[in-house]
């Protein structure tokens, strides 16, 4: 049976520390994002932590919501790309093929979660940061769209190792950088096609919701929060 990768994020555990953001930057060769760029709207954060404030002082509640590519089953970003730079692979990942992208940015506009990022210029890393690049991950050229890939390089590595060892992929063996780095263990990643996997059980729990569910994109990131 094919894998169908999904994620569960427990919002009641999330502290908003943004370790996941930093880990993603390190793992995926993200271009630099400084305050200057952020002000111009050119910052890159494949996973970002949105803060929502509820209530009036002193009864303010902050909700932290890590938002990343939801790898929607019926992703609105996929059919609008004229060159098939983004499509749905058999394992349920919304794949971004950097080589094919010509930069029309329609996908970026059509993503309701605004999780897509565009390389407006050729990315640059001031020395010695270019030595920190992950060799498993492509460095994107200018003019190309990018977004969270569920650390597809880690998925590929685990699958390769499992195949070499003639065993199935174990639950929890694939850990994207964000999941791996979360100190509160708020994030879970796994195979939704396996009913026994942790992520499937969490997704089926009473606390599971999805973001912008009524848009019908069928996202695969489940946000767990206690019902009011």
């Amino acid at each position: 049976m094919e894998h169908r990768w999904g994620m569960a994020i427990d919002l009641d555990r999330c502290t908003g520390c943004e370790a996941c953001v930093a880990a993603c930057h390190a793992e995926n060769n993200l271009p630099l994002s400084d305050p200057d760029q952020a002000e111009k709207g050119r910052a890159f954060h494949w996973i970002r932590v949105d803060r929502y404030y509820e209530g009036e002082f002193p009864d303010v509640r902050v909700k932290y919501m890590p938002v990343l590519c939801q790898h929607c089953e019926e992703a609105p970003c996929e059919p609008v790309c004229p060159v098939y730079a983004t499509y749905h692979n058999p394992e349920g990942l919304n794949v971004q093929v950097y080589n094919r992208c010509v930069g029309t940015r329609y996908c970026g506009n059509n993503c309701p979660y605004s999780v897509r990022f565009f390389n407006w210029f050729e990315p640059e890393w001031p020395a010695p940061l270019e030595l920190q690049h992950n060799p498993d991950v492509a460095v994107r050229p200018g003019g190309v769209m990018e977004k969270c890939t569920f650390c597809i390089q880690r998925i590929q590595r685990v699958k390769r190792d499992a195949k070499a060892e003639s065993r199935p992929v174990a639950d929890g063996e694939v850990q994207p950088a964000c999941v791996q780095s979360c100190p509160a263990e708020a994030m879970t990643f796994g195979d939704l096609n396996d009913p026994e996997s942790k992520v499937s059980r969490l997704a089926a729990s009473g606390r599971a919701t999805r973001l912008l569910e009524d848009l019908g994109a069928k996202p695969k990131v489940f946000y767990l929060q206690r019902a009011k």
Partner: protein
Amino acid sequence: MFLTAEFSDAPSVGAAIGALKACGFDAAQMDVFSTEPVELPEGLLERPSHMSLAAVVGAASLGVLAILFVRYTQYDYPLITGGMPLFSWWATGVIFYEFTMFGAIFTTFATFLVESGLLERHHAIPAPVLLAGRIHVRVCCDAGRAVTAMECLQRTGAVNVVES
């Protein structure tokens, strides 16, 4: 041989053509040259055309070709996008429509070029020089009928009948 006669208005041209037809000349033997379209009575100078049929055929064939091509490409390298089916009439209907229209446009223009004779390399018969306000009628006839033709033309008000 050709007889080219000059007229000054459409009714006299109409009369001339009527006279020539009465004398037994065929519409195919006659040509009217002018700097703007000449209003002649309905049916006097019939020029059959296949343009409508050609346009429909061209449009339909290009439309069908577009459908087959798109279908082929979508199955040739099947990539799923947004949960949509590989081939879907809704998702690509516009393309079929545009190609159908393109077929109509292209065939109309091509038929025009062919039917108007514009593409013929050899203009064996030199046409009269276009003058604003003057209409020329040219009759193709063999030498024996030339006198009859000449008489028809002059009877209806021709000026400057030239033989070539």
